[in-house]
């Protein structure tokens, strides 16, 4: 019996000491408040978050990206291994890529991915982005993780000045808009979400500027009552709907904006991703609004 206990202890201790990593030189904290320790700047990164992928590309770290999701459609990374969806990646394929850092979404409800990767000795960096401040912070964190903090600061400054330029180009009355996150049941972006903030920069007045939540389900009755001048419909990754489809649906067909064709289409892959292309997203929103102004 004593021998058995001693054996178990030896095995346990053995396991522990066997897994001890090289001393970390980079200490980060991710958006779930967890410490992330890296022995060296990450060289083999899997990004499960399209906005983080954009940021890596903007930081000139394309050669460090060894895995991406099926939603990353930038042609320059078409050859990078696709490990499936960001929330349901193929874990075997992911581990097989031997990454030293996996960037995950902190909104991952399952939450066990980080633990499973930790047992394989792979560090994870969870990112949560609700507004532009979160987006800037994520860019600085990712820049630090690849050992290039200075470039992160430059990137954030560039986006901030892009947004200032778009805001400065806004003239005239602000159209009242409804932004379609989902079509049925209708969901929209609140004023404190990055989309709400980009809408403001682009010169729009969000008809749901009074909602608390960042992603708010709203009723068709309320949309009809608030009668937006323009409906903004993202296309691409999540084609929320088409004009013909909206015109045939109860409620939507009652909106003057839909009846009279004041529906602004924007690239959903651009606008719905709080990454390094937020400046371009604000510009696209601004131009789409100008094109369909009442």
């Amino acid at each position, binding site marked *: 019996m004593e021998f058995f206990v001693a054996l178990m202890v030896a095995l346990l201790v053995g396991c522990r000491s066997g897994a001890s990593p090289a001393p970390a030189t980079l200490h980060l904290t991710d958006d779930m408040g967890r410490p992330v320790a890296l022995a060296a700047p990450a060289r083999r990164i899997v990004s499960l978050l399209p906005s983080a992928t954009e940021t890596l590309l903007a930081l000139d770290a394309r050669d460090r990206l060894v895995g991406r999701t099926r939603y990353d459609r930038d042609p320059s990374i078409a050859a990078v291994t696709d490990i499936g969806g960001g929330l349901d990646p193929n874990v075997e394929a992911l581990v097989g890529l031997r990454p030293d850092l996996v960037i995950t979404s902190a909104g991952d409800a399952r939450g066990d991915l980080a633990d499973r990767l930790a047992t394989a000795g792979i560090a994870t960096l969870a990112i949560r982005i609700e507004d532009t401040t979160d987006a800037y912070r994520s860019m600085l964190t990712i820049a630090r993780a690849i050992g290039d903090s200075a470039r992160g600061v430059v990137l954030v400054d560039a986006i901030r000045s892009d947004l200032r330029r778009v805001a400065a180009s806004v003239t005239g009355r602000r159209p009242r808009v409804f932004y379609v996150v*989902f*079509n*049925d*049941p209708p969901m929209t972006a609140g004023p404190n979400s990055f989309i709400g903030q980009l809408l403001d920069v682009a010169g729009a007045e969000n008809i749901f500027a009074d909602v608390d939540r960042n992603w*708010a*389900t*709203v*009723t*068709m*009755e*309320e949309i*009809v*009552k608030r*009668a937006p001048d323009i409906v903004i419909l993202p296309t691409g*990754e*999540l*084609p*929320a709907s*088409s004009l*013909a*489809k909206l015109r*045939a*649906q*109860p*409620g939507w*067909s*009652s909106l*003057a904006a839909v009846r009279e064709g004041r529906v602004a289409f924007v690239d959903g892959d651009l606008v719905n991703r709080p990454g390094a292309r937020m400046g371009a997203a604000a510009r696209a929103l601004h131009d789409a609004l100008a094109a369909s102004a009442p």
Partner: protein
Amino acid sequence: MTTRTLARSGILVVVLCIAIVIGIRLGAVPLGVRTIMEAFLGRGTDAERAIVLELRAPRVLLAALCGAALALSGAAYQALFRNPLAEPYILGISSGAAVGAVLAVVLRFTALGPWSLPAAAFLGALGALALVLRAALVSQGLLDRHVLLLAGVVVGAFCNAGVLLFLSFADAESFRSAVYWMMGSLGGATWERVGVMAVVLCVGGTALLAQARTLDLLAIGEPTAAALGVHVERAKRLGFLTAALLAAAAVSVAGVIGFVGLVVPHAIRLMRGSMHRELLPSAALLGAAFLVLADVLARTVAAPVDLPIGVVTALIGVPLFVMLLRRGRTT
């Protein structure tokens, strides 16, 4: 009909009317009675008219029609199967409809405009029904209710597997749409859907009511019915088909709404006995009122979020039914 049955039906008509008025009065946007009346008269703002005439009124009427169709279908099945657990979806209707609807969502089938999804769901329901009937006929040549019941269960399981298979290939938006559809919603109500559902309900309801006496006899037993001159095989086929079409139409325009078809007929039986001449119209009226009120709750309790209507029907239906059961036992 005796004066007493007329009076009792009258009460249910009044209950349904009150439910409809409440349904049009209450919603996400508070509107006064005066505003609503003006909207019906074509006055008021565009937004008010749109809310009352294009959103609320068709939704309330569609709820009433679907509630009636599901209750009728359930009542007929319970007699035909001589099984109190029979409900409108028992022959694989809802699972078949779900396969059609999910396929339409995932494959982005939009050729029929706003009717694409209902048409796909209806075809799916008919497909499942055809499979079930075929399976039941092959084994005996006649419609055996036990075989039919089993066929319904296995075809339903097969269809559910199909739904999950297709969903695993769906993207986020399709997944969301499909799951919302399966939870049941009257949010897609339009006047066209109300029209189609009204026609289906009139035809199906009349067909079942014309068979009221046959259903009474079949509920006692097939040999008895045959001895009393009922053409059993023909009556069963007509009954199964009519009940299935009512359920298929309802599921096509409003998704899967459980519980109404199971419980409403039992409630009527407990209160008024099981003669189908009275059971069928009473169940239709109560089913209609019940679904209208359930939908009012679904729209208002957690506004701006619409609760899935099936959740509401079960949450208020189960306690009500348990209460009825206990009362039925003690008296």
